[in-house]
């Protein structure tokens, strides 16, 4: 494994032994996680091609205006904000509800509540967004609420499952040593459920990044706006760029969440 020489920054008088250690740590990390490099490489490649392609075209003023960095970056920021806000809301709602549902007293309502979550997820997000916009308001708030509803289930379900799969003997050990049920929850059950909960959050986040494309239809902006502009103006180059960016953002976010997931799993063993 001729790993690219680790950029050993720092004093040159580092003991050779220590240097070897850094090298081997780097090599080990590389060996365990080299698959993480594949996706960003593909994204960079595709975006590069897109960039080269577009820059060889003769763009008219409309195209130039729509594809101006200010416009694209502004929409990208809106898009990420929509996804981030709704995912945070999902986290705030679904995790506590999931915890409550996993308590022994709530075992009976667990099934029905999860079923409602499943129902919410089965609804087509586009329809929900439109209906909500008519029922309440067009705009960011409604979009965020709609996105949140659509992405509740994965986190809710994973919180319940994550807590349920904690080894009962560990809970018994915790109680047997005198931990209160609250201490047991926060010091034993939740930390051990975190990898599963994080996996659910990753699904919710990716779902939200994708669905946020539809938010532009109720006036909440985002990268969907770019698609709409391209379609309205009938500019195929813009559509190409919009599609490329949306795909790249979704993949990149999923990749980042995947990295975060690995870090969390590695930490909690």
């Amino acid at each position, binding site marked *: 494994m001729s790993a690219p020489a680790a950029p050993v920054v720092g004093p040159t008088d580092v003991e050779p032994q220590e240097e070897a250690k850094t090298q081997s740590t780097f090599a080990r990390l590389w060996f365990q996680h080299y698959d993480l490099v594949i996706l960003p490489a593909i994204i960079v490649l595709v975006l590069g091609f897109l960039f080269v392609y577009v820059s060889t075209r003769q763009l008219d003023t409309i195209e130039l205006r729509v594809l101006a960095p200010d416009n694209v970056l502004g929409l990208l920021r809106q898009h990420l904000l929509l996804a981030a806000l709704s995912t945070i809301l999902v986290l705030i709602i679904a995790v506590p509800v999931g915890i409550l549902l996993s308590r022994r007293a709530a075992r009976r309502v667990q099934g029905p509540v999860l079923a409602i979550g499943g129902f919410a997820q089965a609804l087509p997000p586009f329809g929900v967004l439109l209906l909500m916009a008519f029922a309440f308001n067009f705009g960011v708030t409604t979009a965020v609420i709609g996105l949140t509803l659509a992405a509740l289930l994965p986190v809710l379900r994973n919180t319940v499952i994550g807590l349920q799969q904690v080894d009962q003997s*560990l809970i*018994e050990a915790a*109680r*047997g040593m005198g931990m209160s049920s609250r201490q047991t929850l926060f010091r*034993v059950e939740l*930390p051990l459920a975190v990898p599963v909960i994080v996996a659910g959050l990753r699904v919710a986040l990716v779902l939200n990044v994708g669905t946020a494309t539809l938010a532009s239809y109720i006036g909440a902006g985002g990268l969907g706006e770019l698609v709409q502009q391209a379609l309205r103006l009938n500019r195929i180059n813009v559509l190409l760029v919009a599609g490329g960016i949306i795909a790249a953002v979704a993949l990149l976010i999923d990749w980042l969440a995947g990295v975060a997931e690995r870090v969390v799993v590695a930490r909690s*063993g």
Partner: protein
Amino acid sequence: MSDTADQTVVETPQGAGKSDMIVLEGVEKIYPGSTAPAVSQLDMAIPQGEIVMLIGPSGCGKTTTLKMINRLIEPTSGRILLDGKDVTHVNGDSLRREIGYVIQQGGLFPHFSIADNIGVVPKMLGWDKQRIRERADELLHLVGLEPSVFRDRYPRQLSGGQQQRIGVARALAADPPVMLMDEPFGAIDPITRDRLQDEFLEIQRTVGKTIAFVTHDLQEAVKLGDKIAVFATGRLEQYADPETILTRPANDFVSDFVGGGAAVRRLSLLDLARLELQPIETDEKAAGSRNGTAVVEIDGSGKPVSWRHLPSGDAAGTPLVTVPISGTVYDAVDVMLDGGASLVAVVDEEGRAQGVLHWNDLVGGLRTRARGA
């Protein structure tokens, strides 16, 4: 064998100034939705510093009984006294912090380092960090694991036996007077289990805790227990020292549970280290007292090579056989039969003679020493 049992010295004579540490008075547990009690009208007292083994078939109530002592399971009725204090209605969490608790495989928290696992109870009791760390190191030493190596490891990096040692260390962390152990060595391979049991007894010799210990393994019960409580479907069938359980079962249930061949089985359950052996002397210092004491000739390294004098005479005609003191009476008998000798020299790890076990001792009643003596 019944008449020899009378001569058997019970390890801890009753009424020898030991107070009862754990007392169960008319304790009963009826689970919701069930009519038959899981444990019914149980009266039991565990003297301070003793190991009591709770044994019986599954569903007999032994684990329920154990968990009622620290109120992980709340008794339906009855009283539980700990060191004379009624704890039936005190706060369960703080009660449990003062009782050591060990479960199968140790129940270590996988996301805590070894030191943090040991420090769980001290931390809840509000000890400062320095004290918790020192205590963890001390306990790692006690269970035979080098602190500098193991302190910062995680449970998954340890073998099952090592995890179980940490489980015991964790239960001892806040130095509780009482420990409850729920089949702690149940899921461990027989060889490691045997070693853990030896180490456990060794530790108990230094810490002298009052221990209630659930097991389904009769051999373990006899080996570790000062007393054995045999349970059947919620009732305590017999509560006595191991010798009595094996030789004088109180009823058919206990005798069935103990099984046939109890007298022979007992031999393999009796550690030589626990026996009062007949004295043995080496040739140099034996000059004066040659009458009732066996004398061996030793070589340069102190190992016995032959009998010089035997109380029964004929030292020259008796082959010298030895058995390590870590073995059991069963091993000793095996060696005697194999070597055609009517007595065996018991030797320590360095091979030095520690005492003599005579064939007649077997039929005349074996005397066990008080533990820690």
